[in-house]
């Protein structure tokens, strides 16, 4: 049981660590499929985490926190849209600006409002998304193989983890099976064609950016009101950028992106478990070498070693309507 349980616990922690990555990567997927680069995932994640924790600590409601997180993240998405769609500004610079603003603003606001040196008060259980026990988690626990698998791995996560996993088929359906999705992909490949069909390029792109805002909002709420119990400064800690890496590694396709997120989540979970333990033959491996693997893998992919990552054709190019 020892090794089996070890593996189950690592996978369990993988699901939790992958949750914000999955939500952010899906956000990035929708935005970038519509032709808008989203470096600002990190910033949206951070403001959402702060919004959720602040609102949850005032109201005592995790749901109010989630609402605030989504609103905060959508506000940032709107600014991104205003700069990149309406004013055809540089999308990378806009994203970078929003990340910097987010990191300054959340520390300034949390210090001023809560006077705890850049944190929010620790949230009690009622103001957080607690673990959900799925039916059968206890009664089936003795069934060999399936019992522990169901109980340890699948059951017992917060609602937001299940929402993240569900977001993947949802995004797939939205982008590949609906008329909106068809137009969305078209606007990321050849906006002029969409425009000449009489569909507004700007409005489509605005909707894509706003949906990305919603997804990042849920991810932020997960960080501060489900995974953690409160906001800590810089708590997004590069997760938005890892999501960006997963998006590229998954080549802008939902299920491949999910796999990349799970892989990155697994690496982090494994690194956490291996901290300080001796491995056979190599001894202690610095965990940093495991933690940088997502970035190394992305660079190797971009070099073109395992297949080519081809982004949407109109990605990053502002659309100028012909007159």
């Amino acid at each position: 049981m020892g090794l089996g349980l070890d593996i189950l616990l690592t996978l369990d922690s993988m699901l939790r660590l992958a949750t914000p990555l999955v939500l952010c990567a899906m956000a990035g997927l929708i935005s970038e499929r519509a032709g808008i680069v989203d470096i600002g995932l990190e910033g949206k994640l951070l403001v959402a985490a702060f919004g959720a924790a602040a609102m949850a600590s005032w109201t005592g409601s995790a749901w109010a926190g989630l609402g605030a997180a989504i609103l905060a993240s959508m506000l940032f998405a709107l600014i991104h849209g205003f700069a990149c769609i309406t004013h055809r500004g540089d999308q990378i610079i806009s994203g970078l600006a929003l990340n910097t603003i987010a990191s300054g603003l959340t520390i300034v606001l949390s210090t001023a409002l809560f006077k705890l040196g850049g944190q929010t008060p620790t949230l009690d259980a009622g103001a957080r998304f607690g673990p959900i026990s799925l039916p059968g988690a206890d009664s089936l626990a003795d069934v060999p193989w399936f019992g522990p698998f169901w109980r340890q791995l699948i059951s017992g996560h917060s609602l937001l983890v299940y929402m993240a996993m569900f977001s993947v088929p949802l995004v797939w359906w939205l982008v590949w099976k609906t008329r909106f999705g068809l137009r969305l992909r078209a606007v990321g490949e050849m906006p002029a064609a969409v425009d000449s069909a009489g569909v507004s390029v700007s409005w489509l792109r605005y909707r894509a950016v706003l949906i990305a805002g919603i997804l990042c909002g849920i991810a932020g709420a997960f960080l501060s009101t489900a995974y953690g119990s409160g906001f800590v400064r810089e708590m997004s800690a590069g997760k938005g950028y890892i999501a960006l890496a997963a998006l590229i590694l998954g080549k802008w396709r939902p299920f491949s992106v999910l796999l990349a997120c799970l892989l990155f989540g697994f690496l982090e979970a494994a690194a956490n478990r291996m901290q300080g333990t001796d491995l056979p033959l190599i001894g202690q491996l610095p965990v940093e070498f495991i933690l940088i693997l997502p970035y190394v893998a992305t660079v190797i992919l971009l070099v073109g070693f395992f297949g080519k990552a081809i982004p949407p054709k109109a990605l990053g190019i502002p659309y100028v309507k012909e007159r």
Partner: protein
Amino acid sequence: MTKLPAWAEFGLIPLINLALAFGIAGIVIALLGVNPFAAMKVIIEGAFVDDGALGYTLFYTTSLIFTGLAVAVAFQARLFNIGGEGQAYIGGLGALLVAVTVGSWLPAIASIPLAILGAAGFGALWAFVPGWLQAYRGSHIVITTIMFNFIASGIMVALLSGPLMRAGQPNPESALIADSARLPLIHEIAPHLGLHVARSPLNLAFPLALIACVVVWALIWRTRWGYALRAMGHSEDAAEYAGIKVRRLIVSAMALSGMLAGLMAINVILGAQGKVTLAFPAGFGVTGIAVALMGRSHPLGILLAAFLFGALVQGGTELDFEFPTITREMVLLIQGLIILFSGALTFMFVPMLSRILGRH
């Protein structure tokens, strides 16, 4: 696209951007219950008036000149180097390795230049790789430089808490660099010249940064290489057609950019600290982007913008002590707003201004 007269483009637009960023930050400060003008006064006093304040301001200015020039050199060729942070970090490693190796047996006159070369070389190498990948494999430079920032950070954490960690102390930081390989501090040299200067980390990297401004200006506007670089920035296809070897240019521009970012480490590591600490670039690589945008990628503009941001960083630390509700991160907010207005919303004002100024 309508064109603005130069005074408007290089003077008025940056001022409008600055005013907007300060205005919004001022509103935030007022909403938090503090008089924004009182906060401004604290920043200005903290940056210029207090004992040693100007030295700190110029110290931060020095770092920002290097990272700002780094971004600007790449910008001239339409390359966006976000990796200044990682290049500075790795540059620090280069400075350390050389300084520790030669510092104990070579005189200062030889070991200091070698250590500076170490910083420049390692920084250049860390940008050369993304540059090469962009030129020959088409890997998007923005993404690769972001990834290289994180890789650099991981490597440095592993090294500083592992093989490079100084024995006998709890923090992950490197061995101390011998005095003979360190850049002298200004307040230590000044008495020899009969001057009294207050204590600050300001060191000889500052004049070197000023020289770097001149060298970069000459390189970009007075050499064949710089001409090719600017031509490529205007149109890669035209440059290629004119016989410019675009790929080699991408690689050399990125290497120079990384070299400048790496030189930021001489200010902090060889000058102020004498050792490499965790995350010593402290966001200055990113601030360099704001500096380059605001300085319109021109060395003179960068000098001014670096001084402005240096003053904000130094004055901003005083906010922590003077007000219970406002912290130094206010400066980060201002910086983000300036990046937004001067980088992403540039086109918001140009049409409006060109209508007002009546040039079409």
